């Protein structure tokens, strides 16, 4: 009997010690029950801890964008921490730590959804140069419905079409983004680009392949006649300006024509290209001339040099005096067929007294004549010397008396 009692007592004590021991263990530590360490964003993330104590320690939680603290819900011996949406919806590592005198900590990973919702696409530059050197870059960031970038290694298909060729290439996301350099072709034209990731398609993107810089070219000249009548207009033309790959340069390419005359002076005319051709115009000189012409696209290309000659038309200048020598008539000024020179031919009269230039008058012809009248109020009755200049000729009339 006594023996039995002993055994009973012994067992009772044993049970008591074991159970109290267990209690002690549980009291000291709160153990993590959740074994899952990777969750898809958007799902409900519940971290569960076993706890024998009726304590509800807070859980510190920090993700890619910020940190917060979560209050648990205690269900019997289980502490439930529901990770709030703004953390559960963002991909990346989430680190947690129990704020408890025996702190446990850990982390889990929120991974993006397996479905692409939007393709953030950046393309640039929007225009590139033809040839094999220039390129544009397509950057694609495929993101899921919760705006999380896809994991590394997600395949992205890049489609691009240029003229008649269509190409497809597969690239992969790496460090959040995926990118592809798309080179220009030798021809100019428009490049159409689109991307695709996990069966989600981007919109269409276009990049213009513009002609490269022009290469050297030739110029030509066109004029109604070869006479220096100061009236007709000479036109200069470029050949079709092309880049190194025979693309016609963009309209509006600026071409400057430099015209150097006999005296070494430079006249400038300019034009912009239309369909590769630039045109510029210059009025004919009024005296015999020899022009040397060369055109440039500044800093890029130049033309050959051409020269053009203009023949003298006015051979002789006749002068007549009237009204006490105060009216000076120059003319008739005759052109290449002895016709009266077209209106607007320039004649200059210079009035000297004792070799001092008193006055210069410039007039243009009308019906082949130019007449100057000298006012009494300006020129007192006296002796003056006149010089008439026109068509490169100069005629001196010394000691003319006005009265």
């Amino acid at each position, binding site marked *: 009997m006594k023996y039995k009692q002993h055994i009973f007592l012994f067992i009772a004590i044993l049970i008591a010690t074991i159970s109290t021991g267990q209690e002690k263990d549980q009291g000291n530590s709160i153990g993590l029950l959740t074994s899952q360490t990777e969750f898809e964003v958007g799902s409900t993330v519940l971290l569960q801890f076993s706890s024998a104590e009726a304590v509800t320690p*807070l859980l510190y939680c920090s993700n890619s*964008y910020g940190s917060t603290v979560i209050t648990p819900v205690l269900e019997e011996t289980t502490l439930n921490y529901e990770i709030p949406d703004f953390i559960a919806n963002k991909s*990346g590592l989430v680190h947690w730590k129990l704020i408890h005198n025996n702190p446990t900590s850990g982390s889990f990973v929120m991974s993006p959804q397996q479905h692409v919702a939007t393709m953030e696409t950046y393309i640039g530059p929007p225009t590139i140069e033809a040839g094999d050197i220039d390129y544009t870059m397509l*950057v694609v*960031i495929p993101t899921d419905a919760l705006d999380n970038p896809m994991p590394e290694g997600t395949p992205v298909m890049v489609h691009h079409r240029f003229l008649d060729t269509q190409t497809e290439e597969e690239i992969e996301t790496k*460090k959040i983004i995926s990118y592809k350099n798309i080179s220009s072709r030798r021809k100019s034209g428009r490049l159409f680009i689109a991307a695709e990731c996990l069966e989600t398609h981007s919109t269409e993107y276009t990049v213009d392949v513009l002609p490269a810089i022009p290469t050297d070219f030739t110029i030509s000249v066109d004029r109604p006649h070869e006479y220096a009548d100061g009236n007709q207009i000479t036109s200069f033309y470029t050949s079709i300006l092309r880049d190194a790959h025979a693309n016609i340069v963009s309209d509006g390419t600026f071409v400057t024509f430099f015209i150097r005359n006999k005296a070494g002076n430079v006249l400038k005319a300019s034009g912009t290209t239309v369909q590769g051709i630039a045109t510029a115009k210059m009025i004919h000189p009024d005296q015999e001339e020899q022009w040397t012409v060369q055109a440039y696209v500044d800093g890029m290309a130049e033309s050959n040099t051409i020269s053009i000659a203009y023949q003298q038309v006015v051979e002789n200048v006749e002068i007549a005096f009237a009204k006490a020598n105060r009216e000076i008539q120059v003319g008739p000024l005759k052109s290449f067929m002895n016709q009266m020179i077209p209106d607007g031919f320039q004649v200059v009269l210079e009035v000297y007294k004792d070799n001092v230039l008193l006055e210069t008058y410039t007039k243009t012809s009308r019906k082949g004549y130019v007449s100057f009248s000298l006012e009494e109020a300006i020129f007192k009755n006296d002796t003056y010397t006149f010089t008439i200049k026109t068509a490169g000729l100069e005629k001196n009339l010394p000691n003319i008396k006005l009265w």
Partner: protein
Amino acid sequence: MNRNILRSILIISYMIIIAVIIGGISSLYSYLNTGADRATILHTEIQKIDQYIPDVYWAPLYNEGRPMDQETLERIENNYLDAWYVKQIAYKTNTTSGIEDYYTENARKNLYNTIAHNTEEGIVVEATTLEHHPTLEFFSEDGQLVVITDYDVVEYKRLYKDEVLILETTETATYKIVLLLEDGFWRIRHMVKEHQEVYTEKERFDTLKDISVKGINYYPQATPWDMFGDGFDPEILSKDFQIIKDAGLESIRIFVQYDDFGKANVQEDKLQKLKQTLDLAERHNLKVMVTLFDFYGDYAVLDWTLNRRHAATIVSSLKEHPALYAWDIKNEPNLDFESRGEKQVTAWLQMMTSFVKNTDPDHPVTIGWSNAESAIILKDHVDFVSFHFYEDLDTLEDVYLYLNEEIPTKPIVLSEFGMSSYKGIWNPFGNSENDQATYHKEIQGIIAKHKIPSMSWTLYDFVEIPKEVVGRLPWQKNNQKQFGFINQKGDEKAAFKYIFKE
């Protein structure tokens, strides 16, 4: 007659009211017409002021895509750090101002959500980042998009719930970040945390076993607490150092004031004067303990990066100096416990101690606690413990033995002690010069008995004490003036004999 007066009063008051109303309306009108400066549209007028300057160590540039230029990289860095800064402010105040400048429309939402949750739960996060190690991964051809991996970002965080501090943590984390150039700002588009661990302080330095310090706290007589100002005179310093050396002492403790030295942008001329002081000490064979952050009292987490920049500049420019003996992080920080909170001050000290240790691995670091009780705080972080003692001499031995027992592995330095010989209207029962001499005689006895490394306060009696030191009260000021071994006239006081004991 009476009616006339009444009438004129009425008319005058009417005119006054009209004048006031018209004046008000016209000033409102002109205010509304001032308009914004056009330049503000482009945000070009933003002035760069240092408000957040963690250490940023860029990896060499081997990025994919377009080659990076230094100027763009600097812009990116500035905007990126600003993005961190506005985020820290936002989480500290739970407001959203500034976020839209540095986060794109989609990225902003993530911060707003966190702020909304934290506001609701009464959570406040005070945080700062101390180090960034970014690598430029990618720069797009059109110069509008970059990808950065920011490795081992050292983040210090302090979380409050309902205004109670619940967690303090230092972590290192790695982020991948996509930034877009929008409206002239590099804005964060995506941010993904990839790695995180608890920050562990690097251990260094074999524990110091024994040190011997026989020194004195030093300020020039004419310019106390303004040692590196306009009154800086190398000749005076040289003469004083000679006196100190001749008295048998071997070291001095000097103070670098945070504001005076220019906060985060340490002024070069002050630094030169500090260097010159150490040069002179070297010439007179004295070692120098430099006390940093004097008169600094903020400790705010968002101030940390500025504090570190200040310390980095001074520590790295002096760490090779042969006269340098040790760094005292801060003088009597425990006096700020009440106003700033013990945890806040301690966290700052721990961070700064570890930072100075890392910046200068060769010199010991300590904190000049104002009493022995505080000296136990952070005992594991300092290389030697120092405390100040101005109490009754009878207790010194016990205090020292107590500290020795508490901290058996590290040397304990008595880095300030002394007695004022002021006795006058403001303190008729003060100590006389003879009392002061007796005090020093006795304390030198205790110091010699226990071989306590020690530094007394101070060489001179001062004429002027700035109000920042002990306040404006005349009895405190006058008391503070007469701690010296040499009086205001320049004569040795009775205590001078006991400045040091073999």
